[in-house]
């Protein structure tokens, strides 16, 4: 740009409108093709599974799509071995969300504090490394002993998994804050707290959000694994029970429900991320129309 003070929207509207609408149409066409190919892939996969399970392999071990579908219909229209499917879903979901929120908040807070304080970080570094090296799934058994068979032991497992995922990113994000931005803020008159709120937290946000995507997956894993180790309700119990009765369709059905929950959560997180990071330039692969 040779003169950088062009008035916004001063270009000829017709030309621009045309370019935008044709670019939009191209994007729409592409999306349609992509979706079509995806559906085709799923159909081929399920079809070949169904066929081979009917004629080639033993459906007792590998189950088959129709049996899994039947199982899901059964669960949702009648009931599971432990009561309504919705009770199981809501139970697992509550545990996962509680672990996610608590672990996320704790991870962000501690990550930012340690990221900004050399001294505390130096003191705590070996302990954190050690804690991180503990195989966390084993903790689920310990938590059952500590907190009993109720929700709190599952929340604790989800918490631990989420905490470490978020903590390391928040720590890194708080550490990598551009010194120039901090110095600029100091010159402009910012105190420590103001620098934390207006510089450190926003610049760590993209790191933190990136970790939250995998963290919700971890929260569900934590809840389900916790239920495996002992529970009276939940999707993990359902799957564990299916395993105990050699009901492979039940395992798949439980897996599908958990996957759907994770996908919905992922979608919600993406919305949050877009909202919080709207200041960022559109990266390639996003759905913004570029001409």
């Amino acid at each position, binding site marked *: 740009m040779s003169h950088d003070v062009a008035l916004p929207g001063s270009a000829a509207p017709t030309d621009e409108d045309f370019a935008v609408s044709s670019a939009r149409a191209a994007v729409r066409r592409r999306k349609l093709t992509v979706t079509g190919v995806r559906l085709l892939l799923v159909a081929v996969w399920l079809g070949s599974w169904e066929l081979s399970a009917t004629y080639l392999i033993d459906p007792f071990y590998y189950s088959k799509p129709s049996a899994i579908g039947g199982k899901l219909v059964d669960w949702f229209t009648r009931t599971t071995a432990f009561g309504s499917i919705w009770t199981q879903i809501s139970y697992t979901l509550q545990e996962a969300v509680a672990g996610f929120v608590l672990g996320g908040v704790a991870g962000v807070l501690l990550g930012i504090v340690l990221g900004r304080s050399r001294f505390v970080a130096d003191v705590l570094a070996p302990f954190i490394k050690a804690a991180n090296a503990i195989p966390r799934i084993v903790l689920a058994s310990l938590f059952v002993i500590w907190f009993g068979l109720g929700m709190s032991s599952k929340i604790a497992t989800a918490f631990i998994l989420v905490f470490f995922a978020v903590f390391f990113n928040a720590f890194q994000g708080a550490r990598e804050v551009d010194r120039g931005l901090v110095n600029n803020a*100091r010159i402009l008159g910012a105190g420590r707290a103001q620098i934390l709120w207006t510089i450190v937290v926003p610049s760590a946000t993209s790191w933190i959000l990136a970790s939250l995507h995998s963290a919700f997956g971890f929260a569900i894993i934590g809840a389900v694994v916790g239920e495996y180790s002992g529970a009276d309700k939940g999707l993990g119990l359902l799957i564990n029970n299916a395993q105990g009765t050699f009901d492979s369709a039940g395992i798949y059905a439980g897996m599908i429900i958990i996957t759907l929950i994770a996908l919905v959560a992922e979608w919600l997180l993406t919305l949050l991320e877009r909202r919080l990071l709207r200041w960022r330039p559109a990266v390639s692969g996003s759905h913004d129309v570029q001409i």
Partner: protein
Amino acid sequence: MTSETVPVIELVGATKRFRSASGGVHTAVRDLDLTVAAGEFVAVVGPTGCGKSTTLSLVSGLEPPSHGRVAVNGREVTGIPEGVGYMFQADAVLPWRSVLDNVALGPRYRGATSSEARDRARDWVGRVGLGGFEDYYPHQLSGGMRKRVALAQTLVNEPRILLMDEPFSALDVQTRGLMQAELLRLWSGTGAAVVFVTHDLEEALVLADRVAVMTAGPATVKQVFDVRLPRPRDAEEIRLTSGFLDVYREVWESLREEVQITRERMSGRVA
């Protein structure tokens, strides 16, 4: 300037050493002597890497000197002195804030209410010629526009001392000329002291009352030249006058040797 008044900026024998990457000690600037009076526009020129940015960081209080004295308004610099504005060499606008919110930062930090800060910011956004772009994010602006945001962000605090580190060097020639003219317009009548670092001698002479030439690193002030060109100056016209060419030749004579030394060192390092 009368000699009785306390200089706004005073560097006496200021030396700054850094620990170098190899564990040794690297002297960035040594025995700096420089005084700047209120309302004075001083340009600092010198070869690349000689220590110009370091000099500004000493004055701003972001780095303490290893030796010598740095004083602002007659007081030894310990923290960031009151009334200092600093436009950094690298882009320092917040990418997650709109133009308006970026400019409103200073007043907000200094305790203004949100609406008060935004009013002042809106005024300054207009003054630097960005009216209509208040809600844009930095990545949606051109490089020149981002520099204007940084300028407004600094000026909204109405600094008595303005430190500028190669603010326009990344801009194309036309935009740079435009920004120089605007800087002179915004500065005139404020009575602020300006220290303007540049490697562009022409720019230094267009803007400044005095030009300090620094030696090849570790830098010290080699010579200070008075630029006796009338004000108000037309940033575009003045470069063509004969008075300008005379002082240009004189300062360039002094600067050229230092540039030459730096160039030789660099090619020596490459070879």
